[in-house]
């Protein structure tokens, strides 16, 4: 019978390439259990003393097809790639096409969008089930 040390050596030599990426991917998911495709936006928020924005894709796709935002509104499909400012939103651009107190809540409800924990980095979350070297 092989000793435990031999088995561990075998795993280290032959199985680590299999296990390592899996463990890394699993590790990424601990601590944060964001809903799939939640987006953190913090390019400007905390610099301006408000919480980061959490954009939930799941909530919006129940109500709108992807193309409404990613075609009609002109949102690039890359978290952090859109130059969104409160000024543009108030002018009816980006989020402001709906968030105007007519279709959805207006810009006076700061805490409903700026709802993230301090210190979060911009990016898409909850989707790291593949743990790939993604640019998401």
């Amino acid at each position, binding site marked *: 019978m092989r000793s435990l040390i031999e088995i561990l050596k075998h795993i280290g030599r032959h199985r680590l*390439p*299999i*296990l*390592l*990426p*899996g*463990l890394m*991917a*699993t590790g990424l*998911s601990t*601590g*944060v*259990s*964001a*809903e*799939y*495709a*939640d987006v*953190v936006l913090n390019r400007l928020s905390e610099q301006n003393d408000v*919480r980061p924005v*959490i954009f*939930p*894709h*799941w*909530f919006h*796709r*129940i*109500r*709108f*097809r*992807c*193309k*409404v935002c*990613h*075609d*009609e*509104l002109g949102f690039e*499909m*890359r978290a952090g790639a859109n130059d969104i400012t409160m000024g543009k939103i108030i002018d009816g651009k980006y989020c402001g*096409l*709906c968030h105007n107190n007519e279709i959805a809540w207006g810009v006076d*409800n700061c*805490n*409903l969008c700026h*709802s*993230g*924990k*301090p210190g*979060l980095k911009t990016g*898409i*979350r909850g*989707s790291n*089930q*593949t*743990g*790939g*070297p*993604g*640019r*998401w």
Partner: protein
Amino acid sequence: MKIKPRYLVCALIVSGAIQAQVAGWKSLGEDGLHDPENPAIELLQQPGEALSQLPPDTVGNKVLWNIAIREQYIQPRTNIYPETMIEVIDMDIIMDKTGEMPLVLFPHRPHTEWLDCSNCHDKIFIKKVDANPISMFTILSGEHCGQCHGAVAFPLTECNRCHSVPRSTFTGESGVQGKQD
């Protein structure tokens, strides 16, 4: 250290399976993103409240979004501006350069139910069979199909949802399937 692709795929499947076991939806206050000290958090809809009403899946948002739209569990708006054109296309494409994996069947219909043609064409894919250098590497890097799959559409652990046509039984030709105008 060189990692063989099939080992990488195994690792991805294992990590996906581990995650799938953590089923259900976390409340916003416990998701690690929302600030539980924000008094407005109580006004936001909880994911479980909405998503538990939709056809269940094992991955992603745990929702079969295409079934949800086709069977009218949800009726998401197609446009804001009245002049926006809506074009749903029913055209399947078979891709056969998939190594030992089953062939890929790409269905335009569920994609165009959500997306506009211009979201993919020609920014991500040019409209020509075999002309796009798609590979699992580019997809895992967040390019091509990976711009959405693995980020917002079903994740890359679901090999057989794309690689869905067995090599042994497919007798037709790759590329666009059926009659086209």
